[in-house]
């Protein structure tokens, strides 16, 4: 939702990043304010997942230019864990499985780590159990998932619910959800989207990275950005996603090429 008195949470200016020496992001500008939902769309290879991971501080993505301010702080100067503690959350496209660590143990550890960093009270296992079960209801998750190893043997949909559960627990200022809709059947998509909608409020923001429009039928974005070849080439409202759904990505990319040609 766009509010009048919103504050800037995330301000990306001319961000460039390389992977294995190849430049993938070629100058990205994006401003995210409190209360907003942004969708970043684009064809495979356009750089949208790279953008998400670069913001979270993935070591394989080297920032080669530009700046990112997060609530006024220099985000790029922070280690990944410091970014998380500052309130940035990345929902993974492929959540990692950790056999041998119970999900409840992992969730409590991450929750308490952030609570301690924020100067708030940590929860003991019993208190946390009550707390996390409440949050699981939001995602219609079976409490059995607490006793299983982190993501091990979870279906695609269960892994994504577990990601949004972490978002619910960690209460980030900006949540970047990388292809959260991929691998979800229609029921799981509805549940996950509903969870995200309930977590979004006027003090935080959500950035959805997605290839398809279908999730945006449930989570209505305030802004839709289209990426192509490492840049945001078009920005519009929710209606842009529908147009992409019917016309595909080629016309946006083609328009970009024409524009570049005109400038040259």
């Amino acid at each position, binding site marked *: 939702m766009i509010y009048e008195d919103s504050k800037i949470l995330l301000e990306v200016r001319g961000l460039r990043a390389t992977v294995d020496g190849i430049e993938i992001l070629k100058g990205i500008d994006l401003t995210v304010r409190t209360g907003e939902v942004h969708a970043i769309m684009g064809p495979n290879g356009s750089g949208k997942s790279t953008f998400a991971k670069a913001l979270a501080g993935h070591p394989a993505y080297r920032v080669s230019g530009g700046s990112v301010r997060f609530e006024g702080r220099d985000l790029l100067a922070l280690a990944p864990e410091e970014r*998380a503690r500052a309130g940035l959350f990345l929902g993974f496209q492929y959540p*990692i499985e950790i056999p041998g660590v119970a999900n409840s143990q992992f969730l409590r550890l991450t929750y308490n*780590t*952030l609570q301690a960093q924020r100067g708030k009270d940590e929860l003991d296992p019993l208190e946390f159990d009550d707390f996390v079960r409440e949050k699981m209801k939001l995602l219609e998750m079976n409490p059995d998932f607490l006793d299983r190893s982190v993501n091990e043997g979870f279906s695609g949909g269960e892994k994504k619910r577990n990601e949004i559960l972490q978002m619910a627990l960690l209460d980030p200022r900006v949540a970047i959800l990388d292809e959260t809709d991929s691998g979800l059947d229609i029921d799981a998509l509805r549940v996950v989207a509903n969870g995200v909608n309930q977590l979004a409020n006027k003090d935080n923001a959500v950035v959805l990275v997605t290839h398809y429009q279908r999730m945006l039928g449930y989570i209505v974005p305030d802004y839709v950005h289209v990426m192509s070849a490492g840049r945001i080439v078009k920005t519009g409202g929710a209606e842009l996603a529908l147009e992409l759904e019917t016309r595909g990505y080629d016309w946006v990319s083609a328009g970009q090429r024409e524009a570049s040609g005109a400038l040259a």
Partner: protein
Amino acid sequence: MSVATSGAYLENLLHGQPLPPASPLAWLNRLRAAAVDRVGALTVPTTRDEEWRFTDISPLAKLTFQPVTVAPRLRAADIARFCIDEAPIRLVFVDGVHAPELSGAAADGGLVVGNLAAARVHAAAIEPHLGRHVDFNDSVFAALNTAFLYDGALVIVPPHARVATPVHLLFIATQKDAVSYPRCLVLAERGSEVTVIEDFVTLQDAAYFTNAVTEVAVGDDARVTHLRLQRESGAAFHIANCAVALGAASAYRSIGVALGARISRLNVNVLQAAEGAECTVDGLALIDGSQLADTHTMIDHAKAHGVSRQLHKCIVAGSAHAVFNGKIRVRAGAQRTDSSQSNRNLLLTGRAQVDTKPQLEIFADDVKCAHGATVGQLDAEEVFYLKSRGMSDAAARSLLTYAFGAEIIDRIPVASLRTRLEKAVLERTADAA
């Protein structure tokens, strides 16, 4: 090492302390005499021996170990921290000598838990097994142990008896430069069920030498769970031979955890001597500093319709060195054998080392056998995942290392032991990360 040096070393071990007094049991005297002969004929293995290629035990042969003439009397308080709540039936050996005053809870219902040296009454049951499963013809350490065979743990589970609580066999090392010869014999008769915990601990940090032999005979339809914890001092030497013989449709499940010792070597030999036997032989070695932990296992499918499962993991920090040699043999006639073996190794530093050698020897044609080994470091994606949730680099690495070991520890069916080991692994991995 020259043969002469090796001979002098063995000579000292063999004659530096008095051999046990003659037994009224002629067969036992013959067994010891045969073992003494083998010690005279064998040499201390060197890295030129195929079975010892990766494990240099020359530091062991450079030290002189004293015989244990008198074991110190310990008080219950001294050993309280080693006791396991769920295992009231306990046999305690101090430097290899039986300590009846520390051993707890008399067995009942025909279950025998006692000292081998006092087990003449069970001689008929023992004779077919003692010294018959562990082959000391080619193992100088098994021969030495057998030459000194006197005190030892004896567990006999009568037919169809189910022992409700685990039997705890606790071996405590207390003396510097001492050599001890722990010995165990576990006989699970037809249709019986028992869990045995072999536990090697220490009250000191100095060098000493534990040379252990364990034999387990699992009768037809019997089920044995065998937990083995090696928590020796960081300066100790621990060499152990364990042989298991499985009857028809029996089940043997073992989990070995090695945390201690400067150099440790465990040989496990499981023989599926009858049809339809099942075994699981899991292990975890967690070592750092300059520790060396060597595990050699042999699962011998001698009869048809056998099942074996093995997961052996090593976590190697510092400049430590882990060795795994796992042989699966499927003999001709052992048709419909179903076997899988996996060895996974985690190296936490650039100086850590692992040598792994899974081996399959198959002489039957209708079998299902899978094996594999991996050696790796912590996965960068996994570390990033945890850091993206706010965990520090050190905490993320510690948790992932712990998780790697927890896969084995979680299989231990004794809750307090599991908790204790999880804590030990977390402490060790926190140090290593």
